[in-house]
């Protein structure tokens, strides 16, 4: 007999629009200064865009700063350091921004010549920010079986919202799925399983498959 929640899980979807800031950088010091000042929505955009644009694979390092520093300025080591920032460890955009700033500052201190590199005309870094619209969908789930069925068919934007955006941008302690499974279904073991993997290294469709797999195995057991 599957546990049935009193309060169902309501699936929301989230759609985003890119807003241009008009800010651009041609060197790493310029990039650094702007990173310190731009709205959190811009840091969020440049560290999460790849997930949305490359749902079928992840060709870019998981943030635009790393990609630009590697591919345009040729500072591979700093690029790698930024790409490998473990985003899942940071609970807020503020913390993530501080980590990015600290990484760049430390690198520039030990590699001052990196400050001299300029992007060619047309290859500047352009700061964009994400405006997110959150909407309720018609889908709700009272138990794990219903939950898995909805996960299979819901818009990928919904999974994206509950796993990434709710945690980092709304500063919730874990992803929404794990929170509901633990607090409404009382299944802490499953909740832990769902928070344990690094979603940033999966494509969104693989993330969907993995979540469905974990929940279906739990139902079967």
């Amino acid at each position, binding site marked *: 007999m599957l546990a049935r929640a009193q309060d169902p899980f309501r699936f929301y*979807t989230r*759609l*985003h*629009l*890119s*807003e*241009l*800031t*008009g*800010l651009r950088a041609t060197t790493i010091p310029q990039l650094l200064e702007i990173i310190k000042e731009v*709205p*959190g*929505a811009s840091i969020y955009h440049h560290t999460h865009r790849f997930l*949305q*644009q*490359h*749902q*079928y*694979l992840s*060709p*870019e390092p998981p943030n635009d700063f790393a990609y630009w520093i590697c*591919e345009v300025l040729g500072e591979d080591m700093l690029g790698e350091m930024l790409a490998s920032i473990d985003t899942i460890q940071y609970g807020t955009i503020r913390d993530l921004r501080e980590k990015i700033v600290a990484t760049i500052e430390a690198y520039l201190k030990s590699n001052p010549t990196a400050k001299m590199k300029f992007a060619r005309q*047309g290859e*500047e870094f*352009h700061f*964009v*920010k*994400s*405006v*997110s*619209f*959150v*909407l309720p*969908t018609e889908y709700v789930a009272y138990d794990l079986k219903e939950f898995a069925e909805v996960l299979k*068919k*819901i*818009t*990928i*934007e919904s999974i994206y919202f509950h796993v990434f955006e709710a945690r980092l*941008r*709304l500063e919730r302690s874990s992803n929404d799925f794990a929170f509901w499974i633990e607090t409404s279904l009382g299944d802490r073991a499953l909740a832990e399983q769902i928070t344990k993997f690094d979603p940033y290294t999966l494509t969104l469709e693989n993330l969907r498959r993995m979540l469905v797999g974990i929940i279906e195995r739990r139902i079967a057991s």
Partner: protein
Amino acid sequence: MAKIEDYAPLVGQFVIDDLRLLADRLKGKVVQHINSTSVGGGVAEILHRMVPLLRELGVDTRWDLIKGGAQFFDVTKKFHNVLHGRVEEITQRDFDIFMETSQINIDEVHIHGDIVFVHDPQPIALIRKKQDNKWVWRCHIDVSEPNKKVWDFLMDFISLYHAAVFSAPSFSRRLPIRQFLIAPSIDPLSDKNKDLPQEVINGVLAKYGIVRDKPIVTQISRFDKLKDPVGVIEAFLQVKKYIDCQLILAGGSATDDPEGAKVFQEVMEKSKKNKDIHILLLPQNDIEVNALQRASDVILQKSLREGFGLTVSEALWKAKPVVASNVGGIPLQIKHKYSGLLCHSVDGAAFAIKQLLNSPDYARKLGENGREHIRNNFLLTRHLKDYMLLFLSLYHQEDLVYL
């Protein structure tokens, strides 16, 4: 005309469901598009497909045109050219002509939209009719290096809008109003992009006397210096030294453009005596363009400058390996070595073509990745979603909006 549900097999039912959710939030609002022509050009092409789909979704969408004589459109063409970076003289008389026609349109065009969506510079002065409705200016032009005189003139109008929309981040600059990034799109169900039976493809090749006995490299674009057709031939000739292949250079007529006619002459000169170079002066025939793209082994877009370069999306949607210049909106469509190859020169283009022709598995993988990238980011359904979000954003200033 395609219905919204016809797109579900291509993009997933959930994408269509999201569009319906957004459309529900726009119930009761009238969206009025205004541009300068109902035929020809990319803006009219996209509106012809979007307006019926928005209406089907339940968004009350209208489309109105401004009027103007030959003199007015000569001036706006000049504006277009210099905003694109071309050097032409702009006189006070040009601005006067622009304002005279604009004033007539301000007097005559009936504004009835809650949201008024003005496309490109021609109708830009209508903003003087702004009341308590929302106004958006959609710039379809590459304004990364605009003529300052014309841009400053336009800025007097742009700054009165509630928001502006650009196609690529590099086209943006600091503005006193909100500005959004919305890339254009292709329609996967249009004649230019829909699947074609092999007989149709063979028929088009036969019509132009092209035999598929060696790999085909193709560039589709009008004979314009900025599309660098001469550079395409030079790259092809470098490849041809090592790989037996053929080139198709196909594009629209250049008769109304003296410079285009000169470029066409140069292309003919450069290609004569080479039976493996096919120069096709195509009439406006989307099925033929589609067939030529589908018949190709590698597609080239060696532009020196691009507004966006949707021919790249068209080729990638057909899962073709593409070699294209790293300009305008092209790097948004191609991620180098993942969904195509970017180049900066004739030599670079030649090298990339050789790579792709010699490594068909690699070429196939790039093409497949490219198709998925287009599916996620450059189809009409994404464009519809962005436009509806744009309309909603006019009523919300925050970065995180609960609807």
